């Protein structure tokens, strides 16, 4: 069995890659991918904890419930996000975050 800290470090790394993607990328689709990476890093965390707790004999079925909820919420978010990106692209012909700067002050 892989030790728990390894899995946690892996999940934290995944989260940070996602975070970097959101902060550093300019393309809206890439930013959305970063957000999805962050959410899935949490799923890795939850599953790792579940394995650790069930090996220790604790009841932690809520981890599964939670993973299912997160997956559905992430899917809904991606659907709305992609729709918004397409809607912007149709009018402005760009998906670069820096070019969306009508409002200032």
């Amino acid at each position, binding site marked *: 069995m892989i030790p728990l800290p390894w899995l*946690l470090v892996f999940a934290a790394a995944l989260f940070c890659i996602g975070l970097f993607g959101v902060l550093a990328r300019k393309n809206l689709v890439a930013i*959305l991918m970063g957000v999805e990476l962050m*959410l899935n*890093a949490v799923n890795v965390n939850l599953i790792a*904890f579940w394995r650790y707790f069930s090996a220790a004999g604790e009841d932690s079925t809520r981890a599964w419930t939670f993973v299912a909820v997160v997956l559905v919420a992430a899917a809904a*978010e991606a659907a709305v996000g992609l729709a918004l990106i397409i809607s912007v692209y149709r009018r402005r012909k760009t998906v670069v975050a820096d070019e969306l700067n*009508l409002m200032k002050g």
Partner: protein
Amino acid sequence: MNLENLVAILPLAALIVWAVLVLLVDLWIPKSRKFITALITAAGLALSLGLTLAQNGQSRSAFGGMVAVDGFAVLLNVIFLASGLAAVALAYDYLKRMGIERGEYYALLLFSISGMMLMAYASDLIIVFLALELLSIPLYVLAGFARPRSESEESSLKYFLLGAFASGFVLYGVAMIFGATARTDLAGIVAAMGSGTGNPLLFIIGAGLLLVGFGFKVAAVPFHMWTPDVYQGAPTPVTGFMSVAVKAAGFTALLRVFTALFRGDVYADLWPLLWGMAALTMIAGNVLAISQKNIKRLLAYSSIAHAGYLLMAFVPYGTRLQGDAVASTLFYLIAYGLTSFGAWAVVVALEKNEGMGLEIEDFAGAGRRYPWLGLAMIVFMLSFTGIPLTLGFWGKLYLFRTAVEGGYIGLALVGLLTSIVSAYYYLRVLVVMYMKPGEPVAQGGPWVNILAVATAAAVVLLALFPGPILDLVSKAIMLQ
């Protein structure tokens, strides 16, 4: 799922069923008669409001401890549903005037409110996350509702990206707390940490991440950057709804989760962070508002500043003043909600097509030409500042008292000084409305005018007799 559980969340269940019905019925309503959709929506909100009031005085949990029906939830649900009614009144004529009259506005509004109600009931971190997503996702779409106006689309995208980013933090925080205690229900987490089986390191990491995530939702500095752009670009009724209801929902989450979980040692680690956040939010919100020329941006920065005042009273939540922190926050949410909806009603009344008529200079002469709207705006601006004889004064007094009694005198001082600064930009709006010549046209329609005058009357009358609200908020106790 047995019947008892369903009865416990009946106001919420009824609202969700109603929202689905609105979505369906709207298909058969012709484009020229969309007011029918608005009326159906208002009826659904009123129904849910009645069911909520019938829950008054209850104190029980349902769904295996995932949901708590208590005085806190009932009072907040009344605030959310009343905000929904106000948002319908604001949009009734606005959507037609702007040429964006689509029935989805009302269905999305109902879905968002059901998410907020779920947040008020939540006593499990899974439900907190679910409620956060349910209230946010319809709002991302609502912010872009004035499509194809570019500003609206842009505001929607910004709100979406930062909102999704913030929910990532909330989620990571919840996962860490689950890892620390193997539980997600608030009572179970408290028990696990109390018995010493929990992992304190993971727990404190989780607390910090939750603070970041909720900070985004209530627009606390340094997580406030999205607010002015989103508030400016979104259709004005949606902005009004966001400035009141979403802020209230964010504070609901903070109060529910933090007052239950992060006490004792964790509180000792957290309060300096909260202190800094509250002080920065008050300072930045008020200072940045001074130079604004657009009324929507001005009110956006003002809403950031008010989030700071609310945070100020939230800081002593871990001391013996927990009851006061909760009660004063709820009191101020009511005062701020009434004032803010009224101010947005005045903005909606004076807004012109294509996002014109939103500069403060465009309000010149409005005070003399429309005496009622002008008088209402005087009340709102004074209430925002916290001048006596308005509800905002009592609200701020209560917040300051909580902060001072909690021993955070420095913070109260920051609040007092920034309140004085805020008088400058609130009064400037009144000066422009009354002292400068101009010929603005108010075309908000009857419901917007009624909303403005009614909220102004409520702000003044409730300030003369604040007893009933004080009584209400002090009874809004959380089940623990």
